[in-house]
């Protein structure tokens, strides 16, 4: 399985945000995006997730389909990725379990039919140490707990590509370690992850790309 990005040019409004970005990412490895604010990290992640149509260049994910991964056909990146942005995607009127149960049913595909929804939700809460808060409305939780609940979404549905934009924001070191462990386990299962971050994260195996702040042209 492979993610191929070829000379991507991204524009926000009519300002050029990323110029001629190219990389390929193999299954089982990660990519860490670093760079100052406004260097286009978030824009690049949103373009990879399919929210933003690149001005030119293309993003393709190859090797989806059969378990042996030889079929070259590519499909919508948006349908095979988890996208974690600055917001958690959590409804405060629903309890933690209800939130995750909804995401489990909504985002799941054939590969998830192995375990039941409740099982996957329980495991995800377990991994992010939220099982005590399963029946608490998300509105009562702290920012850190909400962030962990948002990240727990990664585990309730199997998606090969993880796109994480500053995932460690409002996480304490303990929770950050949980996240890094989850990412590394995802990579060892053959998945891919692209993480935009300021802090050094012990993601293995991963290589880094640093984006430079674009000089604006009139």
């Amino acid at each position, binding site marked *: 399985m492979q993610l191929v990005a070829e000379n991507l040019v991204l524009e*926000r409004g009519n300002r050029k945000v990323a110029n001629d970005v190219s990389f390929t990412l193999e299954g089982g490895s990660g990519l860490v995006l670093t760079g100052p604010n406004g260097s286009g990290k978030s824009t690049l992640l949103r373009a990879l997730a399919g*929210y933003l149509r690149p001005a030119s260049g293309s993003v393709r994910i190859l090797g989806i389909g059969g378990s042996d991964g030889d079929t070259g056909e590519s499909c919508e990146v948006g349908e095979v990725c*988890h996208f974690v*942005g*600055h*917001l958690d995607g*959590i409804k405060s009127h629903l309890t933690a379990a*209800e939130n995750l149960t909804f995401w489990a049913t909504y985002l799941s595909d054939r590969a998830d039919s192995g375990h039941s929804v409740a099982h996957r939700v329980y495991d995800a809460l377990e991994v992010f140490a939220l099982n005590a808060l399963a029946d608490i409305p998300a509105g009562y939780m702290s920012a850190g707990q909400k962030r962990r609940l948002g990240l727990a*979404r990664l585990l309730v549905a199997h998606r090969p590509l993880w796109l994480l934009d500053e995932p460690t924001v409002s996480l304490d070191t303990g929770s950050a370690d949980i996240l890094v462990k989850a990412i590394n386990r995802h990579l060892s299962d053959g998945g891919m992850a692209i993480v935009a971050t300021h802090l050094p994260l012990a993601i293995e195996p991963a290589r880094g790309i640093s984006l430079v702040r674009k000089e604006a042209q009139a």
Partner: protein
Amino acid sequence: MSAFLALLKRDLMLSVRQGGALGTALGFYMLVVTLLPLGLGQDLNLLSRIAPGILWIALLLAALLSLGRVFSSDHEDGTLDVLATGRMPLEMVVGAKALAHWISTGIPLALTAPVLGLMLNLDIAVYPLLMATMLVGTPAVSFIGAVGAALTLRSYRGGLLIALLVLPLYVPTLIFGMAAVNGLLGVSGTSAAMLILAALSLTSVVLCPFAAAAALRVQMQ
């Protein structure tokens, strides 16, 4: 399909939990129906003649109130971005949310119309037909309204702006709703109006999700 039902169930659960949306719409509905006789005078036979019109227009305005929240609450907490990465196309997401709005707001408003008809001295025989036209017409209200909600997702004067954008598009629904109701009051063309009203609703159920999804996609960049 399970994703569609899951989203529909979640939205209905939210509207029950949040309760407010329906409460304000019903409250506004009753308020408009109470104010109009105060303004137009308490002459009962005048009121009974224009009662269907008052009820229909009050329903359109009341539905508008709760439309603003259809997408903006999901937009604010980031849920909309994640919904877009679902296997289901964005048009179906819009369809599920508009359907949830119709079930949680459109139907209750249509069902309370007769209760308010009492205050307007509406002829009892008209009640079933009035409710029928409202039930048939309100899907168009929710789905066309969803386009308005999607367009005004990030603009400042959201609520007011939706009214300006969407009310002109409600004219066909209002006219055919009234024509269907008036059928009983002796004006010809009842069944034709009801069929056209149903056609309007079905067309908006099919076409509006595309316009609303396009508007959402443009704003998610």
